[in-house]
């Protein structure tokens, strides 16, 4: 019995965290952020599908090529990495934190029997899970962008080349890591300010600043630059001066700690 007694508080904490996460996940149902994830994930694949159908002549060549999957994957990631992904993350994270302000529910959340630590991390995990959901939907979209033309048109074959799962998984994982600094910074600012325009403006300003700093020799220090740097690295083979994944994870950990302390010390909690 003694062996298990010390584990009980840990099990209790984990259970409380899981329930809190389930509660947070339910809150996003039908919210603007959840629609943004779905629409954002399918926007580019749908555009590519339409573009491919319009440029019917090139369909056969692409689908019979050994690089069929990689080509479409690359087309989809280019606008996503530079523009839609960072902006989508800025908007979705701000919208999620805004849910409590907009509905005047911080007081309800903070009078529920859960620790502030649980609330902070359960909500953060819900945002990260939404990003994960976005990546899954985006990849399904890419798959459909390749497959749909071969279903519609008789002469267009299903690509013979096997789907390079591991390659795509690794690229997705890298982009996922590159999004983490954006998520946590937006999350911190979103938790602090009732006015939705503040986290949004903050995110846009940092994004524009990061894009402007692309050619700066210390540009890699900008926390919102890594998605773009990763795309350049993956598509053109340009190696950044530093390991951008370590920087991304480092920023994520640093800002998570800072955000957590700020959240705990908030004078008014609803």
């Amino acid at each position, binding site marked *: 019995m003694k062996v298990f007694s010390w584990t009980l508080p840990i099990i209790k904490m984990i259970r409380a965290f899981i*329930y809190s996460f389930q*509660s947070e996940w339910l*809150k996003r149902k039908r919210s603007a952020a959840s629609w943004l994830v779905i629409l954002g994930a399918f926007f580019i694949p749908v555009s590519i599908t339409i573009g491919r159908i319009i440029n019917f002549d090139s369909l056969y060549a692409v689908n019979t090529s050994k690089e069929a999957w990689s080509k479409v994957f690359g087309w989809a990631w280019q606008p996503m990495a530079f523009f839609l992904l960072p902006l989508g993350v800025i908007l979705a994270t701000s919208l999620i934190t805004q849910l409590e302000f907009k509905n*005047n529910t911080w*007081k*309800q959340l903070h*009078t529920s029997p859960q620790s502030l630590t649980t609330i902070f991390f359960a909500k953060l995990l819900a945002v990260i899970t939404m990003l994960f959901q976005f990546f899954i939907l985006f990849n399904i979209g890419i798959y459909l962008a390749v497959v749909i033309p071969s279903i519609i048109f008789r002469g267009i074959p299903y690509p013979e080349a096997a789907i390079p799962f591991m390659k795509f998984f690794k690229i997705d994982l890298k982009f996922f890591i590159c999004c983490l600094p954006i998520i946590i910074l937006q999350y911190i600012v979103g938790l602090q300010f009732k006015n939705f325009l503040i986290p949004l403006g903050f995110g846009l300003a940092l994004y524009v600043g990061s894009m402007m700093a692309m050619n700066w020799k210390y540009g890699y220090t900008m926390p919102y630059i890594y998605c773009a740097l990763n795309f350049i690295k993956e598509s053109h083979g340009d190696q950044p001066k530093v390991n951008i994944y370590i920087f991304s994870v480092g920023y994520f950990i640093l800002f998570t700690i800072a955000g957590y302390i700020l959240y705990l010390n908030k004078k008014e909690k609803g």
Partner: protein
Amino acid sequence: MFCIETKNLTHRFSSSETVLSNINLMVPEGSIYGFLGPNGAGKTTTLRLILGLLKKQTGDISVFDKPFHLNRIEILQSTGSLIETPSLYGHLTAIENLTVSQKIYQCPKERMTEVLKLVGLENTGKKKASQFSLGMKQRLSIAVALLPNPSLLILDEPTNGLDPNGIIEIRELLKKLNQEKGITILVSSHLLSEIEKLVTHVGIINKGQMMFQGTLDELLNKQRESSCIVFDTNDAIKTAEIFKENDITAETKDGKSIVSIIEKEKIAVLTEQLVKSKVKIYEISTIKNDLESIFMDITNN
């Protein structure tokens, strides 16, 4: 035993603005405590401090006889609350709003149907909370507060925005919860008339200071004490002399003699003596201060 007890609770929003000054709130277990005061008196600040929504600066807060800051989660597990405006997710239905809390409190799912029935919202179906009327939102918020089967309910102006029928319904519901389930209820309001039919205990706060605290009966006694009898006669001096001879202290105001409530027999004796002394009596009337006037007196002081 007190369900909620604060000792010398003081709070400042800035160094020049003291919003609460040495508040010693004592809510007996099993009571319905009416926390009264005009707008801006400090009611909501006190309740927010009790629930940990504001960081405590000076003083002590105990709930269920335990210091709040050391037992926050345990206390909140048995406390339902509604502070000011309804706290609901507008894009979710009534049942989904309850599920958000049900996950955290880990109460049985059947409890959601129970509380919805209790507040009369069992037939709202897929209607989103944002499409509810203010009264429905208020009732759903109460349902959320009742979900964990709390021992203590803290409600800040729960009848705000409700029509008279809604006010009566909520009042009856709270009475029922208190009597049948023994739930201690702390309910704030700026209208005494609204809660005098509900509460067993009363605390009156004004400008951050506790002006009165006690049972409703004690407040009613105060009302009786402040009631008076007015003698309108043609000779106030003579009237005062007669009162003095009968050991009754009278105050003269606008030519009328005002005495505190006295026995019926005494009124008859005084009337007889006044008539014998050829003092003409125009009117003898009783002024009964209602609770609202007492409340106004206390808060104006």
